[in-house]
């Protein structure tokens, strides 16, 4: 037994030696020594020759073949142990019980540990792959953006059908640039409860029919999901208004600021402004109007919507608490 212990320690040392043959031999020796007990100690022995030494083989099986290995080894040892005794005491049942419960549990834990390690490896590989993809994408995007910008520039200079082509290239260039920024906000930090307002506003700018330029602090601005969707809806209503009243050539700018206790979304256009009295007139006629719906959304968030308009254009300031 001492000799085999030495051999086993050496043999289990390297993964390539942990073969079914070794495990089978280990268990066979353990059971063999159990079966030898009546021969060596006489029929009415108390403790078996190997005693707790059989645990070595049992644990090896549990580690290697998990629940099933632990169960099979425990059963084999239990049967051998009970089989050689001429009378069975309560302590023997206790030992068998421990064997039967210990083998499968150790096996189960080894199994789940191994599964977790595999899952972690997979996750790490996925993260590394995503990073590499992002790096490659940056190179690809940069090349595409270069060409689109160049087409836009050269097209505008060449005129005619080329100008049209250049314009289309320009639109694609803007939306690709915006998509890249939105992608930057897709982080593990964003959860179901919190969303990135900066990325959402970029998306809004891309989707709008008006030519919109979006300025953000350059990092994700995380807010509860409902707050983000309400702010985006309000900013979207402002932009729709730009398209409706300031004409197709009007340009708009969206600025997101992250203040100490609030966020401010400013939507400005360079249109002719809202004529004095028009909003009041609309309200007077009983029409709620876009302005009121924007104010209502912000009030519901515990914030405020401020409107400033003049010959220089129209500016909405939407402030919501953080």
């Amino acid at each position, binding site marked *: 037994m001492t000799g085999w212990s030495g051999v086993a320690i050496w043999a289990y040392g390297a993964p390539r030696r942990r073969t079914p043959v070794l495990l089978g031999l280990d268990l066979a020796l353990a059971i063999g020594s159990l079966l030898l007990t009546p021969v060596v100690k006489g029929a009415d022995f108390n403790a078996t020759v190997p005693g707790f030494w059989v645990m070595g083989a049992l644990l090896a099986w549990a580690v290697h073949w998990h629940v099933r290995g632990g169960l099979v080894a425990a059963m084999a040892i239990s049967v051998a142990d009970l089989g050689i005794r001429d009378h069975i005491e309560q302590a023997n049942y206790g030992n068998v019980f421990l064997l039967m419960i210990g083998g499968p549990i150790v096996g189960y834990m080894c199994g789940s540990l191994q599964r977790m390690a595999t899952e972690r490896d997979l996750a790490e590989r996925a993260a590394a792959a995503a990073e590499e993809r992002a790096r490659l994408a940056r190179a690809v995007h940069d090349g595409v*953006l270069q060409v689109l910008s160049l087409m*836009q520039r050269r097209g505008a200079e060449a005129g005619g059908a080329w100008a049209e082509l250049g314009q289309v290239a320009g639109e694609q260039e803007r939306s690709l640039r915006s998509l890249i920024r939105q992608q930057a906000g897709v982080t593990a930090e964003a959860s179901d409860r919190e969303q990135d307002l900066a990325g959402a506003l970029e998306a809004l700018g891309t989707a709008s029919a008006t030519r919109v330029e979006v*300025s*953000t602090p350059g990092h994700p601005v995380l807010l509860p999901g409902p707050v983000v969707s309400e702010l985006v809806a309000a900013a979207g209503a402002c932009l729709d208004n730009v398209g409706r009243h300031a004409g197709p050539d009007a340009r708009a700018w969206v600025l*997101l*600021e992250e203040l100490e206790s609030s966020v401010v979304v400013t939507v400005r256009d360079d249109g002719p402004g809202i004529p004095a009295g028009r909003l009041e007139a609309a309200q007077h006629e009983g029409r709620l109007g876009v302005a009121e719906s924007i104010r209502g959304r912000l009030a519901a968030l515990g914030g405020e919507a401020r409107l400033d308009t003049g010959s*220089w254009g129209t500016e909405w300031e939407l402030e919501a608490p953080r």
Partner: protein
Amino acid sequence: MDERVDERVRVMVVDDHPMWRDAVERDLAAAGFEVVAVAADGHQALARFPAARPQVVVLDLQIPGPSGVEVTAQVLQQDPAARVLILSASGEQADVLGAVKAGATGYLVKSASREELLDAVRRVAAGDTVFTPGLAGLVLGEFRRIAEGPADDPVDQLTERETEVLKMVAKGMSYKQIAERLVLSHRTVQNHVQNTLRKLQMNNRVQLTRWAIEHGLDDDDE
């Protein structure tokens, strides 16, 4: 508009995209600028800069070799009088902010028109700053981030006026429109914008020095 410059401004163009490099070079030369060097990557740029001595470096950020941000820092270390104008296609926000912190005084996306580019080179050469609304938003965000940092940081905060002007730039207003709305001179608006960049660069230097001291990198010459 007279596109010729009285004293020919010496310009270097750094871009790894040959079509772009040629286009920018041609436009600049046609407008009377003297293109003293071109480079396709960071190594070439740094190798050619000392001999060419350009006044303005028109720099793409996504270049092989030392990045655009590093080239900006090294070029300005060699010649603090030089000006760097970033001309980037993707405008990745971290890179743009990094380049501006390193000392670039102008930023333009590549979709800008030829006239916008020429105007930007001219203004940067004259010592002005060229901002896009996007960059103004980034700089505002950066100052707010600094303001929320440790209170003992010896950093320059923006004055109320500077913040106000920067906000207007971020909302797409031109310097002229801002001057009209705030009843200021065009020059004053420009000074405010320049100050914000100067403070940003100063804060960056202060932070770098602090970092170096904290990490014991200042013992080199002992």
